[in-house]
């Protein structure tokens, strides 16, 4: 992305919100601010680093092309999440690969990007990521999604509820069960 001078836009700072959306240069800031969250959601939801890469590209490209439709009724992050969730759901419905990935994912972690240059750190990160993915793969899709969204501190329960088409109370109730289920599967994966 091109380097830009302007600060990352926020909901209240978006120019002509509801009318013109973001300028192309400001979109680069939007990518910088939110790409990690979108990529991580795609990675853990799809369970595949290369598909997550493609999905993140497609999500932001769609966001760029439709940015004029942003009405400022939610945050940019929530808007991007909505595009990402729709995209990931469509991918899953089209591919029907989930059950295959859970048993053939050894090579996926070899391709996963490393976080540091330290070999020990890379090994630790890969192992932890593998455990997390295995535990998530055992969860119902709804629980997986709730955990990933609630883990984002920038999202409120209300926003998570809106993204998952349920009430905040329902989110809280299911979150408790999701945490419990994840903890069980995570311990098993040790």
């Amino acid at each position, binding site marked *: *992305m*091109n380097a830009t001078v302007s600060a990352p836009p926020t909901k209240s700072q978006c120019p002509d919100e509801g009318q013109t959306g973001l300028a*192309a240069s400001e*979109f680069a800031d939007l*990518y910088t601010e939110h*790409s*990690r*969250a979108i*990529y*991580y959601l795609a*990675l*853990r939801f799809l369970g595949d*680093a290369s598909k997550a*890469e493609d999905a*993140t*590209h497609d999500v*932001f*490209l769609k966001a*760029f*092309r439709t940015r004029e439709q942003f009405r400022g009724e939610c945050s940019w992050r929530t808007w991007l999440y909505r595009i990402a969730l729709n995209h990931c759901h469509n991918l899953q419905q089209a591919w029907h690969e989930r059950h295959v990935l859970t048993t053939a994912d050894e090579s996926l972690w070899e391709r*996963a*990007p*490393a*976080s540091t240059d*330290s070999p*020990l*750190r890379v*090994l*630790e*990160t890969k192992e*932890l*990521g593998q*455990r*997390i993915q295995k535990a998530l793969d055992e969860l119902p899709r709804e629980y997986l999604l709730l*955990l*990933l969204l*609630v*883990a*984002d*501190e920038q999202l409120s329960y209300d926003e998570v509820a809106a993204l998952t088409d349920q009430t905040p109370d329902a989110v809280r109730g299911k979150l408790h069960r*999701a*945490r*419990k289920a*994840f*903890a*069980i599967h*995570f*311990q098993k994966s040790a």
Partner: protein
Amino acid sequence: MKGQNRLTSQTQAQEQALTGQQTQPETTREFATAEELLRHDALHTPVPPRIANRLQESIGKSVPPAGPWWRRLFREPKK
């Protein structure tokens, strides 16, 4: 969080003392909730830089032309 939700991950110390001492023993890191663990994982999962490059190329291709060639050719001069 209660015991069930207490998740642990082992991290291996990577720094060696300048005096040549052995690598530090493994340390255990605890996460109170699944979300906290996922947050930690997300922070250590970098976004491949290829995505930004691909996105830049795609956006460059998707920018529409200024207008049809015939309109540009016969455009009225600005007053």
